[in-house]
C-alpha cells in the first residue's frame, strides 16, 4: 500500500445509517408497482392431517380475488421446491398437511385484506392423523410416520468412530457425561420475509424483488423451479432488515409467488406477517447432544463422544439444522482445545413441525455448550482450576497451523491469550473472593467462561463444496475519479457500504467519500455465495481488495507512463499519482481517469482502455476466529431469576476494518445469546401445536434483558488479503454457554446441572428446589 491506511481500522460512521435512521430505507414492503396484487396463504391448523375435501370456489366469489391456487395446481404444472440434495417437495401441501403452518392454498387479490377474507372462505375438511414432534419418539419403533409411505422417520444418519477412541475412554482417569438439549428457536429478523415478482413481457424476463441474503441463489432456485433460463430471471434486493440465516435460500412462498406472477402477468407480492413468520420462517437449532468427555488425571482433554439427535421438521431442507448444525459440530466440537479423538453419531428425524434451517452461529451454541460443560465438569471432578485446565488444553501459539483430529486445520489465533485477557478483565481472583463472600450471605454469584473458535469464511472446505467457495468484486474508477465497487455479498445490516468502502478507499488512496459500494442486483453484481457464515468482510472484502489492487497497478502504470517514470518510481497518494520524493511531479486521478477513458494515444501501448478490475477470491478452506466470553451473574434464590452483572467479550477476528461494527456484531450476538440462554423457546405440545406463535409468547430479549457488553480485542491477522477473519456469529456461538455455565457456577453449592435451555426463572427455581429436597 502506498501509504498507511486512513480508513481501515477506524471507527468510521456507517454511511448507510442516515438513510435508515431517518426512515428513508426502502424495503420490500415499500415497493408497490402499479397494479400489484397481494398474496395470502391458507396454512394448516393441524400438525398432521389428511385433506378430505378442499373447496376453493367460495374464495373465488370474494371481492377483489384474482386467483386461488392449490398444491394440486402446482404439481400439475410441475412446480416443486428443492430440499436437501435437490430432493423435490411440493410448495403447497398435497393430500396431507404435515405441520402447523404448512401452506396449502394461495390466494391472490387486490389487497392483502381481501386475500385473507378469501382464505377464510376456503372450505377444508381435515382428517387429523397422529403427529410426532419429539425426535427420539419419531425414531422409535412404531412411531407415527410423517410420510406414511416411508419406512421410518430417519432422514439423516452419519457416524464415525475413530480408531483408538474406545481405548482413550477406557484409559481415562475421568469421564464426564451430560445431555444437552438446545431448544427450537427462530431468527426473527425485524423485517419479515417478502417477495415481489413481475413478468416483463417486452424482455420476457421475470423481475423479482426479495428480502433475501442471497440474490443469486434465489435467482438460480427460481429459474430451476420455474424452468426458466437464469438469464430470464433477475433478482434485486432492496434494503433488507435483518436475516440471521432465515433469509438464505428459496422458500415455498418464493416459488409460488414467482409462478403466480408468470401465470397472471401482473406484479404479485407477498409480505410475511409475524404470525405466519413464526411458523413458516426456518426454525433453528433444536438438537439433543448426549455427550461424554474423557480426561487424563492432569486434566488433559483426551476424547469426545457425542450422539446428536435433531428433529428436522416435515422436510429436510438444504440448510437444515438437523444436518448443518450437527455435521459442523462434529468438526469443531473440540473448540480451542487439543483433543485426540472425536466420535459421533448423528440422527435426523422427520417430525410434524416446521422445517429446520439456518440461524446465526449454525453448529455453535449447542456445541460450545457441550465443549465448555465437559471442561467444567471435568475440572470440578478432578479438583483442578477451570481456568488453568482450559489453558493447559488450548492450542498454543507455536502449534499453529494446528490440524485437529477431526480433519480441520486451525489457522493462527490467540486462544490462551484471549482466555487470560478475559480473566484479567473480569478480575477472576477478585470474583472468587466476591463469590465466597456472597455465599456466606446466602447469595448466589456465578462466573461462566466460554472460550470459542468460529469457523468462518468458507472456501473450498470440501472437494465438492456445498456452498459457493468464493466471492467476487468489480472495482471501477469512473472518468471523474470516483470509484464504484460491485460485490457479490449483500448487506442485511452488516454495513458493507461502509466497511468495503474503507478497504477500497485505502487500496486506491482516495477519500472514502469517493467510493460507492453496490450489491444486491443479479443483473449488475458478479456471482457469488451471498452473505452467510461470517464471510462478507473476509471473502467479499478480500475480493474487493484484490480487485482494487489490480486497479491500483493499472492506475500506477498509466500514471508512470504519463509522468515518464518507471512504474516502481511512482506512488498513489491522496488521490494523485506522484513520482516518489517529487510531489510536484504528480497527476490527479481525474486526469488519469480522463486519459484511460478518452485518450487511447496517451495510454501505455497495448494496455486496455478503462479503469476496471475484478476478482473472484477463493479464501483458505476455513478461517478461524477465536476469543473468550466471561459472564458474571447473580441468581435470585427466591424466584430463580438470573441477573447478568457483567459481560466481557475478548474477540480475535484478525485485522478489524471497523471496530464499531465489530462491536455491534458482538453486542447483537450476546443479545441473541441471552435470548437462547434465558428466554426464547418455540415449544410444541405433544399434539404438534406450537406454543409460541406471537412475540407475546416467544420472548425475545428486550433492552432491559441485555447487559452492557465490555468488548476487548486481540488481532492475529489471517492469510486473507487485509488479514481479516469473519466474526459475525461468534458472540451468538459463545454467549449461551457462558451464561448457562455462569448459572451452574452460581448454583454449584447445590450441584445443579441444566440439560436444556432456556433457563427460565421457573426452570432455575425447579432445579434449585429439586436439589434442596
Amino acid at each position: 500500500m502506498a501509504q498507511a491506511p486512513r480508513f481501515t481500522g477506524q471507527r468510521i460512521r456507517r454511511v448507510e445509517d442516515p438513510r435508515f435512521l431517518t426512515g428513508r430505507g426502502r424495503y420490500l414492503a415499500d415497493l408497490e408497482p402499479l397494479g400489484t396484487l397481494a398474496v395470502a396463504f391458507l396454512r394448516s391448523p393441524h400438525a398432521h392431517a389428511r385433506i378430505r375435501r378442499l373447496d376453493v370456489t367460495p374464495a373465488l366469489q370474494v371481492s377483489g380475488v384474482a386467483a386461488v391456487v392449490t398444491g394440486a395446481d402446482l404439481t400439475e404444472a410441475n412446480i416443486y421446491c428443492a430440499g436437501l440434495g435437490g430432493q423435490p417437495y411440493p410448495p403447497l401441501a398435497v393430500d396431507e398437511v404435515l405441520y402447523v403452518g404448512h401452506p396449502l392454498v394461495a390466494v391472490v387479490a387486490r389487497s392483502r385484506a381481501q386475500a385473507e377474507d378469501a382464505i377464510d372462505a376456503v372450505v377444508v375438511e381435515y382428517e387429523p392423523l397422529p403427529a410426532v414432534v419429539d425426535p427420539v419418539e419419531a425414531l422409535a419403533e412404531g412411531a407415527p410416520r410423517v410420510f406414511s409411505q416411508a419406512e421410518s422417520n430417519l432422514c439423516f444418519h452419519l457416524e464415525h468412530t475413530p480408531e483408538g477412541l474406545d481405548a482413550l475412554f477406557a484409559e481415562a482417569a475421568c469421564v464426564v457425561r451430560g445431555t444437552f438439549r438446545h431448544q427450537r428457536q427462530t431468527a426473527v429478523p425485524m423485517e419479515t420475509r417478502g417477495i415481489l415478482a413481475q413478468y416483463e413481457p417486452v424482455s420476457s424476463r421475470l423481475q423479482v424483488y426479495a428480502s433475501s441474503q442471497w440474490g443469486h441463489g434465489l435467482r438460480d432456485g427460481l429459474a430451476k423451479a420455474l424452468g426458466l433460463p437464469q438469464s430470464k430471471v433477475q433478482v434485486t434486493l432492496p434494503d433488507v432488515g435483518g436475516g440471521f440465516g432465515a433469509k438464505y435460500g428459496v422458500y415455498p412462498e418464493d416459488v409460488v409467488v414467482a409462478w403466480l406472477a408468470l401465470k397472471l402477468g401482473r406484479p404479485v407480492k407477498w409480505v410475511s406477517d409475524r404470525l405466519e413468520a413464526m411458523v413458516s420462517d426456518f426454525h433453528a437449532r433444536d438438537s439433543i447432544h448426549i455427550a461424554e468427555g474423557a480426561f487424563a488425571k492432569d486434566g488433559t482433554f483426551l476424547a469426545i463422544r457425542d450422539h446428536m439427535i435433531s428433529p428436522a421438521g416435515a422436510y429436510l431442507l438444504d440448510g437444515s439444522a438437523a444436518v448443518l448444525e450437527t455435521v459442523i459440530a462434529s468438526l469443531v466440537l473440540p473448540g480451542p482445545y487439543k483433543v485426540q479423538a472425536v466420535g459421533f453419531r448423528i440422527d435426523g428425524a422427520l417430525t410434524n413441525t416446521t422445517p429446520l434451517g439456518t440461524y446465526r452461529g449454525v453448529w455453535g451454541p449447542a456445541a460450545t455448550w457441550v465443549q465448555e460443560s465437559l471442561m467444567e465438569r471435568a475440572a470440578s471432578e478432578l479438583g483442578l482450576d477451570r481456568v488453568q485446565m482450559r489453558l493447559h488444553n488450548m492450542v498454543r501459539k507455536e502449534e499453529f497451523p494446528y490440524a485437529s483430529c477431526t480433519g480441520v486445520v486451525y489457522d493462527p489465533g490467540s486462544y490462551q491469550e484471549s482466555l487470560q485477557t478475559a480473566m484479567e478483565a473480569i478480575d477472576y481472583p477478585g470474583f472468587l473472593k466476591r463469590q465466597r463472600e456472597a455465599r456466606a450471605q446466602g447469595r448466589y454469584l456465578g462466573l461462566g467462561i466460554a472460550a470459542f473458535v468460529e469457523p468462518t469464511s468458507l472456501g473450498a472446505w470440501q472437494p465438492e463444496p456445498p456452498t459457493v467457495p468464493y466471492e467476487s468484486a468489480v472495482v471501477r474508477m469512473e472518468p471523474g475519479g470516483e470509484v464504484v465497487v460491485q460485490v457479490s455479498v449483500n448487506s442485511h445490516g452488516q454495513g458493507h457500504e461502509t466497511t468495503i468502502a474503507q478497504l477500497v478507499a485505502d487500496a486506491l488512496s482516495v477519500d472514502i467519500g469517493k467510493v460507492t459500494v453496490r450489491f444486491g442486483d443479479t443483473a449488475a453484481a458478479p456471482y457469488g455465495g451471498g452473505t452467510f457464515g461470517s464471510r462478507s468482510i473476509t471473502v467479499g472484502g478480500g475480493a474487493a481488495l484484490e480487485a482494487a489492487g489490480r486497479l491500483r497497478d493499472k492506475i500506477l502504470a498509466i500514471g508512470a507512463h504519463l509522468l515518464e517514470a518507471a512504474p516502481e518510481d511512482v506512488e498513489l497518494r491522496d488521490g494523485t499519482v506522484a513520482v516518489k520524493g517529487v510531489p510536484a511531479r504528480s497527476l490527479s486521478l481525474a486526469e488519469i481517469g480522463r486519459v484511460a477513458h478518452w485518450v487511447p494515444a496517451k495510454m501505455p501501448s497495448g494496455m486496455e482502455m478503462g479503469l476496471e478490475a475484478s476478482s473472484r477470491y477463493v479464501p483458505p478452506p476455513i478461517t478461524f476466529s477465536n476469543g473468550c466470553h466471561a459472564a458474571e451473574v447473580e441468581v435470585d434464590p427466591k424466584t430463580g431469576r438470573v441477573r447478568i452483572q457483567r459481560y466481557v467479550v475478548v474477540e480475535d477476528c484478525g485485522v478489524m476494518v471497523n471496530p464499531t461494527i465489530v462491536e455491534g456484531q458482538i453486542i447483537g450476538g450476546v443479545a441473541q445469546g441471552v435470548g437462547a440462554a434465558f428466554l426464547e423457546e418455540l415449544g410444541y405440545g405433544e399434539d404438534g401445536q406450537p406454543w409460541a406463535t406471537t412475540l407475546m409468547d416467544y420472548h425475545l430479549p428486550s433492552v432491559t434483558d441485555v447487559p452492557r457488553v465490555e468488548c476487548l480485542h486481540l488481532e492475529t491477522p489471517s492469510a486473507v488479503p487485509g488479514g481479516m477473519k469473519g466474526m459475525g456469529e461468534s458472540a451468538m456461538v459463545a454467549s449461551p454457554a457462558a451464561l448457562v455455565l455462569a448459572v451452574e457456577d452460581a448454583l454449584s453449592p447445590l450441584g445443579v446441572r441444566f440439560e436444556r435451555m432456556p433457563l427460565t426463572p421457573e426452570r432455575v427455581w425447579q432445579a434449585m428446589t429439586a436439589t434442596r429436597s
Partner: protein
Amino acid sequence: MKPAPFQYVVPESLEEVMDILGQHGAEAKVLAGGQSLMPLLNMRLARPAVLVDINRLPGLDQIAVEDTAVEIPCLVRQRAAERSPIVAEELPLLREALRHVAHPQIRNRGTICGSIAHADPAAELALVLVALEGEVVAVGRGGERRIPANAFFRGIFTTALEADEVIRSVRIPRRRFSGQAFREFSPRAGDFALVAVAVALDVDPQGRVQTARVAVAAGSDVPARLTEVEARLQGAQAGAEAVKAAAAQAREAVQAGSDAHASEAYRRHLTEVLTEEALLAAMATTGGNVA
C-alpha cells in the same frame, strides 16, 4: 394479519353509542385505546360486524374527585392516570400498578376502562380495581348501573357487562390506607405478570393491622381477594412474623393457573414471595411501628 371486514362508526355522544350497541348487541365492539382489541381484530380472533370508535366522545377524558370516590372516565389514558396528581394523591396503589402495565407507548393509548372491559385475568388494572373495591359504571339503553369489581369479572375476558352496555367510567373509593404496595413477576419488563399481588393496609399506632386487603392474579380466571389471608392479618402485629405466615397462607389459598408460561406450583411459590414482599413494603410505608 388483516381484520375481517367490519363497519366502522364514530359516534359523538354516549347516547349514540348506546343506540348503536342496542341495535347491534354482541355484533358490535367498542374501540377506545385499541391496545388489546386491534391485535384481536388483526388475528381475526375477534370479528365484530361493527366497530364503535368512542375516541371522539366529549368530556370523558378527565379524572374527577368526588366526595367519596375518584372517577376515571372511559377516555382517560393509562399514561395520563399514571401522571395524574389526583391519582398520586388519592390512589397511590393504582399509580404503582400502572408502571407495570406494558410499555409507555402502549400506556399512551390504552385506557383504564378499556383494560377493565377487556378483563384479561393477568391485567394489573383489574387486580387493583378488585383490591380497592372499585366499581364499574356501565351505561346502556336500560340506564346506568354500578357493578362492584368483585362481581364484574366473571372469567377470562368475560365480564358482567351486557352486550348493549359500555363502561362510562370506573369509580374507586377515596379511602386512604396507611400503606400499600404492588408487586409482580413477569418474564420480561412489560409482559403480562405470571403473578401480581396488590396489598393495602391500615396499621394502628400500636403497630397492629386493622384492615388488610390482599388481591392476587396468578393465572386463574379472575383476579381475587384472598379473604382468609386478610382475616389472618387483621389484628396481627405488623412485622416479619405475621407477613411470613400470611404469605405462606397466600400460597395455599390462591387460585393459581397453569399454562405454557408457568406451572401452578411456580405460581403458588411466586404468590408467597410477592405477597411477602408486598406486605413488607406496605408496612414500611405505614410510618414505622413495624416489629
